[in-house]
């Protein structure tokens, strides 16, 4: 079937087998390989992307279910890999050493972006609870949690200074 998805602002149109998973559509048809597959039971969250702004596990949706909709992957967050061009969450992950091997990172970052969109100043417990569906084997989550909290306070500070201005 023909599927058309707006991925990171660009339209991607492809003829794919009906059973194609969204994550494979992103990796194969859209050639965006940052989003990884870490399990086959929707348990690990490595494939987390935003679908119309909501975080989803892209291994659990058919590409067909994203037809006509907008997907954002980690490749769509920053305007380049220059540290200054990164999204506040990406910058915080780097500053706090919130990644090691990098495999869970794209999904983890998108889950964090989604969390902060819903709750701009989460507590540590709320961050841990929100990331329960995203596994990381390297960091013990310690610095991931710190990164999300740091990104939240950076957002708060930015919002406060914008209000003052």
């Amino acid at each position, binding site marked *: 079937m023909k599927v058309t998805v707006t991925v990171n602002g660009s339209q991607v149109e492809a003829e794919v*087998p009906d*059973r*194609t998973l969204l994550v*494979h559509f992103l*990796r194969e048809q859209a050639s965006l*390989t*940052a*989003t*990884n*597959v*870490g*399990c*086959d*039971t929707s*348990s*690990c969250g*490595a494939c987390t992307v935003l679908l119309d702004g909501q975080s989803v596990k892209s291994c659990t949706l058919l590409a067909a279910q994203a037809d006509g909709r907008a997907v954002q992957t*980690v*490749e769509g*967050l*920053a305007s*380049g*890999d*220059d*540290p200054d061009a*990164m999204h506040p969450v*990406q910058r915080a*992950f*780097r*500053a706090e*050493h919130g*990644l*090691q*091997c*990098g*495999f*869970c*990172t*794209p999904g983890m*970052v998108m889950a964090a972006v989604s969390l902060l969109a819903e709750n701009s100043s989460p507590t*540590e417990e709320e*961050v*841990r*609870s929100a*990331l*329960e*569906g*995203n*596994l*990381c*084997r*390297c*960091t*013990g*989550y*310690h*610095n*991931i*949690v*710190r990164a999300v909290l740091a990104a939240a306070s950076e957002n708060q500070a930015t919002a406060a200074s914008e209000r003052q201005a």
Partner: protein
Amino acid sequence: MSILGTRVVRTEDPRLLTKGGTYVDDMRLPGMARVTFVRSPVAHAMITGIDTSAALAAPGVVAALTAADLTDLGPPPPDDGSGPNEAAPLPLGGPWSEPLLAVDRVRYVGEPVAMVITDERYQGEDAAELVSVDYEALPAVVGYDAALSGSTLLFPAAETNVAISGGAPADDSAFEGCEVVVEQTIENQRLAPVPMEGRAAAAIWEDGKLTAWVSTQNAQITRFILSGVLGLDPGAIRVVAPDVGGGFGAKVGLDRDAILVVWAAKHIGHALSWTETRSENLLGMTHGRAQRQTIKIGGTRDGRIQAYRLDIVQDTGAYPRMGGFLPFLTRLMAAGPYDIPNASAASTTVVTNATPIAAYRGAGRPEATAAIERAVDLFAAEIGKDPADVRRMNLVPDGKFPYQSPCGPVYDSGAYTGALDQVLAGAGYRELRAEQARRRERGDVLQLGLGVSSYVEITAADAEGGETAQLIVHDNGTATVYTGSSAHGQGHHTAWAMLVEAELGIEMAKVTVIHGDTDLIPLGTGTYGSRSLQLGGVAVHKAAVEVKEQARLLAADLLEASESDLELDTGSGTWQVRGDPASSKTWAEVASHAGDGGLTASVHHTAQPTFPFGSHVAVVEVDTETGKARLIRHVTVDDAGTVLNPILFEGQRHGGIAQGVAQALYEEVAYDADGNPLTSTLVDYAAITAAELPSFELLTSETPAANPLGAKGIGEAGTIGSTPATQNAVIDAVSHLGVRHIDMPATPERVWAAINAARGTL
């Protein structure tokens, strides 16, 4: 001020955060087809027939291969008739030989039986279902006792299920003078490593050269294995380790599955790629731990430990790979950080119808620490003393280093008592004990448990094999490091660039670090056993020192000065005549003067193992009605010598601690009585999540090691310390109810059962 010891954020991160890494599954080779394995669904059976004809007729199928197709391999290494030998442990040959694809017998669920190759990924799963394999079931050997009984043999020609054994014979006279003797059988359960990226390989055969991209911890060892199995000259093989999504010991070299992918690329002349699913990973990637331990500890009533004995049965799964070697490391470290006059250990390694065992974060050492740390707590409980006090009384005193352990190794350096006192103070141990007493007094449902562990471990156990580094300072003033170490999350690229900047003053941004490509780095060993910094890092450092000495001669020539008057200003990266800053030459100028495009130094650094140490305190709350245990604080001192980059050092500790807590409380690979795996997805295998952990409290202690960087290894220490601390904490929480031991993982069911057994209400 040197950059060493400062908090430098990673150079690796911008790429990983914005574009994602390039893992094997991200490779796109021309005409690439996909490999899907047909795996045994039964634990133990004879194969009486394989029919691939239906699969071959399915859409998109390029080939379907079985053991009958393995006709173009090199001859197997000759059996030298010496029998099992711990010095050359993997894999065992002779009657224990492990095939690439099952020939006439399968020995574990998940064992590769056939492979199908298809144009597209999804076609492979369909076609694999069409391969028809006839199995004639055999009784499954599940667990230690079934293996030891020998009533069913996995390898009839071997005439036993015992693959290897070793150690010191038991000597009960050691316990004769002891006022108190405690014995306990402990199970150190089977675990799955679960790197977030499973196993993966891609390969292409072009113009007589085989190129393989493998998710591995060491490209050079991978090439060595491939060269042997495929019968190809090493020069005809290029192995690349691209980004690797975690390894934890289970990606040392490469497994038979990945060997088959590389073989098939050559056999059918087709670019191939394979990335396992998580279910395959939980069945096919080697597991870790799996020891049944019997401990015996004896001493005086006032707390002095006089004798310790550890007897191990190691389950090595269906084939004796590295699992046969792990008990050697357990035995070596059996006495732990204690000055025990009489300590010994022995082990018996058996095969069972389960996934083969190999290294998993700590690889034999966490098992040693888990055993003695339980023993010390049992001993302390028996004599009614605080376990921290018993530890302090028995730790190797500072004045005894280097310390000869009765189990073999010589511990290089340490301040064991200081680490214990530091962690107790940092945790507020006395106040926690008071809070525990209040809760006990009130009979609270939520009881507090304090777990202490002290450890010493061995890192770079194979330091005599060393590690390589080549450093080139180019004539434009930039530098390239080629390292035999192999990064898979540890931050080597950042650390090695820091070493170059520190020694030469070439800023990190101008230093490129390359690893994991045998065409560029033919000689190297890779990353495992917490060996990288103390071997690979020191090799980089020594290469920088060597380049500096070469440069001194060139700068002297350029500046028409005596070598002894020259100095390198590492702040600006320029050579100067001492006392005359105006006379300065940049690295570009000096390296250009060398001709040949720059300056080069190659180093193969060998050393001796080092012995990191520390102490952990875990604080848990246990719900005495449900048995649920929750870690609420974890405080650690992990002394691995001088710290190069605290950010990386802490990251290694965090990850290690979490994996240890996971073993203590949650994770376990389980089989039913027929050898069917019960934990073959991440729904069933309880990989630890953020919601189950607190933030960790890390304290600092640095006792330099005797190498130029003062470094010991830190990759596994967190796991080694945190596992017994957490287990001890759970038992401590309910010890006032009469509980003395609970095996790992301390699940609510087990804790509840232990409480009720002690109360006599079960």
